[in-house]
């Protein structure tokens, strides 16, 4: 059973609350008022439900196939046709600049669209997602010639992109990667690249003829470690159509995303072209990765949503046992609908309220990405950019962790049916799990947050964020309609700054192990606080809006504040006890 309808009304509300009107006010986006944006998403949502969802289950069951003789990969049935339709709809090219064949739409559109495509076919949507990341990297670091050569084709979808970082001996620790690139004599900017990459998503497939790899490798004179890495474009087919020696050596067998090929990629003296400066490869790759990390975060929202819709459809039909309240018993039937049971509601609302909270966060980040790109005032642009950077690890880690838990909770609400393939939630659970690992494991995100993003520029981004929260509290504390919501946001933000200053900064500064011990919990505390602030804003808008939608929204927000936000207290307690009990065991005791 595959049930999904794009959550258009909630996306619209989230964008309104997040201040999308700021984006529509930029001259470049004057054609993209909220109505238009939602019109596009509405049409795209229909495409997703009808075309992409139709291949989600079959793609999972059939999987991708590797032919060891031709070293080629065949996608599941229908994927090639789907890819053609996807490109014809120009979904992939929307946000890119017109000079390279894009349509100059705001980034917000792509961000919101990625929720819909991922919900309906996560495996498939990773392919255009990676291509989009490569476009982003080239836009910033490619030479004019590279841009002219690759961008139009990537944007049209005529070729797809990959990111090749991981090697057998290095995943998290890219400093120890060994793939080499040696200059080809007499050809400036051209290198011969040799090495083995593993787990490369869409490293080989039959959706397009050509594939453009972005490869991390070392130049002969490279310094040791992470400061000695450069980035190269390595196309599968060279400009004259000949095959570049970059081959798929096999596919991984894995828990989920069965329709997404995870490839061994052997570079055997492949021709590659340097992107950006020598030894500055991580900068280029981070452009691609930051975009990708945010979209990985969205995967948690997407699969939470489809799991919720599925579980809800199941629950509405299922009758078991009697309501605890006799007044709610339906005596015309042998049992009551399970929605009468408080715990079934608890599960469904856990998923719904957190999903809408995470969507509030993603909409807010999306708007800030556009502000960072397009605001006329450089100061405003900078502030927005720093905010996005601060929140990138938070979105990636929190939304994927909560997303996985949400899918599991939706499964629970369906009882045994949830565990069977009939209801598809088991596929969503398997597909979801990887998101906590790739693009940098969730703990690496947490380390990025406390080690790099928080202290960056003297903690400016965090201070800017805190100021917004305090402004919100000050402006709304006398608004009686808001009830205890403002008080709860205040409590969360006080707790966050207390933990940040008095526990994290104070202890981690002296002992990095203390930082490592609490980083993951801290990231979740941070995320919940931010979501409380954003849902507080939504509550205000919901009051103004009223009507059935507004009333329901307020109830869901209430649930978040009652049942989800209090997690911050257990997180704080865990953080306060620090590393002691983790490090007390000797290695041979573990």
């Amino acid at each position, binding site marked *: 059973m595959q049930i999904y309808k794009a959550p258009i009304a909630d996306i619209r509300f989230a964008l309104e609350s997040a201040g999308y009107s700021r984006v529509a006010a930029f001259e470049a986006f004057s054609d993209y008022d909220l109505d238009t944006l939602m019109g596009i998403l509405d*049409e795209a949502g229909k495409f997703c439900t009808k075309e992409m969802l139709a291949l989600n289950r079959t793609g999972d069951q059939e999987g991708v196939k590797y032919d060891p003789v031709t070293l080629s990969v065949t996608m599941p049935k229908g994927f090639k046709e789907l890819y053609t339709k996807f490109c014809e*709809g120009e979904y992939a090219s929307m946000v890119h600049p017109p000079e390279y064949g894009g349509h100059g739409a705001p980034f917000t559109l792509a961000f919101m669209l990625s929720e819909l495509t991922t919900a309906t076919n996560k495996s498939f949507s990773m392919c255009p997602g990676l291509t989009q990341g490569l476009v982003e990297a080239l836009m910033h670091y490619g030479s004019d010639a590279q841009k002219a050569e690759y961008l139009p084709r990537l944007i049209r979808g005529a070729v797809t992109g990959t990111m090749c970082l991981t090697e057998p001996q290095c995943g998290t620790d890219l400093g120890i990667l060994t793939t080499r690139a040696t200059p080809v004599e007499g050809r400036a900017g051209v290198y011969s690249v040799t090495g083995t990459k593993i787990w490369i998503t869409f490293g080989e497939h039959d959706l397009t003829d050509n594939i453009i790899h972005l490869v991390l490798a070392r130049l002969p004179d490279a310094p040791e470690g992470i400061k000695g890495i450069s980035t190269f474009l390595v196309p599968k087919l060279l400009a004259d159509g000949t095959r570049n020696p970059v081959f798929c050596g096999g596919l991984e067998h894995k828990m989920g995303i069965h329709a997404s090929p995870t490839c061994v990629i052997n570079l055997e003296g492949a021709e590659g072209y340097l992107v950006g400066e020598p030894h500055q490869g991580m900068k280029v790759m981070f452009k691609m990765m930051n975009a990708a990390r945010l979209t990985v975060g969205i995967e948690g929202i997407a699969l939470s949503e489809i799991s919720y819709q599925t579980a809800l459809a199941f629950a509405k039909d299922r009758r078991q046992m009697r309501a605890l309240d006799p007044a709610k018993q339906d005596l015309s039937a042998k049992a009551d609908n399970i929605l009468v049971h408080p715990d079934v509601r608890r599960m469904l609302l856990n998923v719904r309220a957190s999903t809408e909270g995470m969507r509030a966060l993603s909409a807010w980040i999306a708007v800030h990405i556009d502000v960072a790109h397009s605001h006329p005032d450089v100061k405003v642009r900078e502030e927005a950019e720093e905010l996005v950077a601060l929140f990138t690890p938070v979105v990636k880690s929190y939304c994927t962790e909560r997303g996985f838990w949400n899918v599991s909770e939706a499964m629970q609400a369906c009882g045994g049916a949830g565990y069977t393939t009939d209801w598809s939630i088991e596929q969503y659970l398997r597909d979801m799990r990887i998101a906590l690992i790739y693009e940098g494991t969730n703990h690496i995100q947490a380390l990025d947050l406390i080690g790099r993003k928080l202290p960056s520029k003297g903690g400016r981004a965090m201070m800017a964020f805190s100021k917004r929260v305090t402004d919100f509290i000050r402006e709304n504390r006398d608004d009686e309609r808001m009830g205890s919501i403002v008080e709860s946001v205040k409590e969360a933000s006080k707790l966050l700054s207390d933990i940040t200053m008095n526990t994290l900064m104070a202890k981690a500064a002296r002992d990095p192990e203390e930082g490592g011990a609490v980083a993951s919990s801290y990231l979740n505390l941070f995320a919940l606080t931010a979501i409380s602030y954003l849902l507080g804003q939504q509550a205000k808008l919901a009051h103004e809006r009223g009507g059935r939608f507004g009333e329901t929204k307020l109830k869901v927000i209430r649930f978040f504040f009652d049942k989800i936000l209090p997690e911050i207290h257990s997180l704080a307690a865990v953080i306060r006890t620090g590393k002691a009990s983790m490090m007390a065991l000797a290695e041979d005791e573990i």
Partner: protein
Amino acid sequence: MKIIVTAKRVTDYDSKVIPTADGKAINFDNVDFKMNPFCEIAVEEAIRLVDAAGEGEVVVVAMGDEEATQEVRKALAMGAHRGVLVECDESKLDSDAVARMLVKLCQDERPDLLLLGKQAVDGDSNQVGQLVAEHLGWPQATFAYKLSVEGKGATVQREVDGGVETVRLSFPAVITTDLRLNEPRYPSLPNIMKAKKKPLETMSPEDLGVALGAPKVEVVSYGLPSSRKAGQVVDSVATLVSKLVNEAKAL
């Protein structure tokens, strides 16, 4: 080649439509709307025909309240050239009223072809195309599942009980579309953006010289179909046959 095509706003077939408590109307709370799927097929066909002809225009028309603009825009985003919304009180519309307004539009616009869905999935009346053809004295082909234009006429294959009927008609003509005629496209992003700038004229029934009185059809009541009786699982073919013969009397 000029084609007028209809785009009726109907309840989404994915939404649950239930009558109000008194059975006099439909409760539209929590119901989504979209373009009648048969109209969507007509729009697609019209765009393909004009594209193939290399010249001409597709004029899309909807009738109803302002919300129906969305269906006109959708057709424009698919590729129609110009839109017309006849804004009116939907409660006054029945097949006759819609047909009379379309007749007037056809007389003003003089298209080669009027393309409509064979029926709308809300009312399921299946009358408008036939009525318009009769009023105008134009040839008609209903339930088209294949259509090819030759010069100033068309050959249409119609789905009829147990087979296909092939008819030829000369323009101007009325054709209504069946499900298998084509698969409508999804509007691409650039076309959605372009549609915003395409001309869309709003007019009233009076502008067309049509007075909407009380509808000729009065709805007495709406009711839900009776729910299906539980099925039976039988253990063998023999039991099945015996049940079909003796109980269901189907054989």
